[in-house]
């Protein structure tokens, strides 16, 4: 499941525009499927400045652990505390209630540099 309206990274994050210079970030359905049941999420604090590629936090399942990478540079303006208390939300609704952070972008146009849905489908071999 790769929603058409989102943008994606090679590291399996999705990015959705929420305002002129803000985006919401989560991990893809493919990523949650690979991880298995998420039991622990660690998110950054609001106000943290991040550079694209920085680790934003971790998502951990019984079987494995993955870093969450900042898809773009900016400042963390919101974190989804609900997934910290109910990590299974990431499995249940990776593109919805399972979102992770919101970032105010240094460069709003940088979103255009991410993969589109077709590019991400190619990456994960989904047809």
């Amino acid at each position: 499941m790769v929603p058409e309206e989102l943008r994606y990274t090679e590291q399996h994050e999705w990015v959705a525009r929420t305002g002129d210079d803000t985006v919401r970030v989560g991990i893809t359905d493919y990523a949650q499927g690979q991880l298995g049941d998420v039991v622990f999420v660690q998110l950054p604090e609001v106000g943290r400045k991040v550079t694209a590629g920085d680790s934003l936090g971790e998502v951990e399942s019984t079987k494995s652990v993955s870093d969450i990478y900042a898809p773009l540079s900016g400042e963390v303006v919101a974190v989804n505390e609900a997934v910290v208390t109910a990590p299974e939300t990431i499995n249940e609704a990776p593109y919805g209630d399972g979102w992770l952070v919101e970032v105010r972008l240094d460069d709003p146009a940088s979103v255009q540099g991410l993969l589109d849905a077709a590019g991400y489908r190619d990456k994960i071999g989904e047809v």
Partner: protein
Amino acid sequence: MQPQDPPKQTPLHAVHVALGANMTDFAGFSMPLRYTSELAEHHAVRQGAGLFDLSHMGEIVLTGPQAAAALDYALVGNIGKLGHHRARYTMICAPDGGVLDDLIVYRTGEQEYLVVANAANTDVVAAELSARASGFDTEVTDASADHALLAVQGPAAAGLLATLTDADLDNLKYYACLPARVAGHEVLLARTGYTGEDGFELFCAPAAAESLWQALRAAGGPQVPLPAGLASRDSLRLEAGMPLYGHELTRARTPFEAGLGRVVKFDKGDFVGRGALLARKEAGPTETLVGLVARGRRAPRAGYPVVDPASGTPIGTVTSGAPSPTLGQPVAMAYVPVDRSAPVTELAVDVRGRQEPVDVVELPFYRRGA
């Protein structure tokens, strides 16, 4: 097996695919990792019952008047003392005492033994048993392809099985086995497992596997037994403090480091590895396997360094680790120096560049009925 070979399929492959299992390559086999949720599968085994396909495991059969003597020479355990229809956990070691595999040996007849090996080691174990048995009047056969293996594990397992067989389950003790008819199929029914729960393992002909699986599935409700994959098998055995070959047990360590020196029987005459193992027993191991419970939420994982919490100096290595579904906190097994192995020593694990405090605890992490 060559790396380019496609993974082998068990007789239940079509069943797994029909259930929508997430399949993974494991020891040369395509195996179910999970069906829907490894947490649900884990809890099902702790609270009800889970159903596993373990047909990737190796089955090696020894028959003949000196089958027991050959096994006594080839393995570290005392197989000559194994009663009819009893099973024993044991190991096969190299001449230097390194563990080649851990095994369960079932005595299936007066002169017949079934040796169950880990899938990744089946070829090595079969070859070693053949070589070590060469001076004995016994025949060694790798019969892995003639066996499927199903396991039904959990507190509800005996009740489920009782609806499908007339076998006397009440008198089938832990680590015992008997030939039985289950749902119309001839099986070797064993009260063994790798989950820390009561449960059974059913060895059957490959052609019977699917019918037996469906009968077991239908024996309870829609969720009992719940099909369970290798991910839950791993978290279940970790909680139960059971070693996994390639993690806690390797060619580089003897059973004594693993805290399993009790399986080595020196009072049975010569056996492969005896001299090296006796020397190790007498000298005492310098490192030992311990349980670790993390104080935080980040889990130690296999391969992470165990460090001195004050200096950060590496002192050991994690062999398995995960957030424990039953305990709700991360647990791990690790090798550490003997002088740092007493409960409750405070240690730390380097979890991807950051030290996380852990405490040494007694194994297992979980004991049923506790």
